[in-house]
């Protein structure tokens, strides 16, 4: 699946997007965040406060307990400041 990062999540991870294949044990957004944190210093730093991370699956907002099955694209970003 494709992960896309925005704002300070993107800056801290150092990537705008990437393809990942999490292990089968990763079934929810929350588990995905935990798994990502194991992928390196910059991920651990970017995702240190998971409650500050907003998530979209296939470009729709979801909560962190949402299953990720069927997700083509998951967006991770800080609280939005539009308008």
């Amino acid at each position, binding site marked *: 699946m494709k992960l896309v990062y*925005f*704002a300070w999540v*993107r800056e801290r991870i150092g990537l705008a997007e990437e393809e990942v294949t999490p292990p089968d044990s990763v079934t929810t957004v929350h588990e995905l965040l935990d798994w990502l944190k194991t992928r390196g210093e910059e991920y651990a730093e970017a995702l240190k406060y998971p409650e500050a991370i907003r998530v*979209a699956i296939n*470009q729709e907002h979801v909560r962190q307990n949402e299953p990720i099955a069927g997700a083509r694209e998951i967006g991770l970003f800080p*609280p*939005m*400041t*539009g308008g």
Partner: protein
Amino acid sequence: MPCRIAVRIQSEPFDTAAEIADIGRGDSDVGAVVTFSGLCRDEAGTLAALEIEHYPGMAEAEITRIAEDAAERWPVSALSVIHRHGRIGIGEPIVLVVAASRHRQAAFSAAEYLMDFLKSRAPFWKKEHRVDGSAGSWVDAKEADEQAISRWE
């Protein structure tokens, strides 16, 4: 009559007057047009500009969803939203919402609803450019904006 919804995400400035004229055009039943313009504001005199990042695709889709919700709640005949991205100078418009209706209260409510949800649900992020050239920080989301949503529930 269904509500005409138009959503545009662009880096270019927009022409507010043209948007107002467009929304009433060919519809003699529109009696009320409410607009909201959000301008790049410099609170402390230290800001040179804002850089607005967005999630392409999702930004349009999410604003369209918010507008559709508004159109279900109030009898509006047209809703337009333009949101800019990229570098925006102080005093320049960032966002424009235009709501047209037969009735003023519907137009006011739809515009206010749209702005409240746009603030904390539309995927945009603002980063500061400082006057002194130093790296600015990302603008924090405001608790007040999150709370503004709850009054519509």
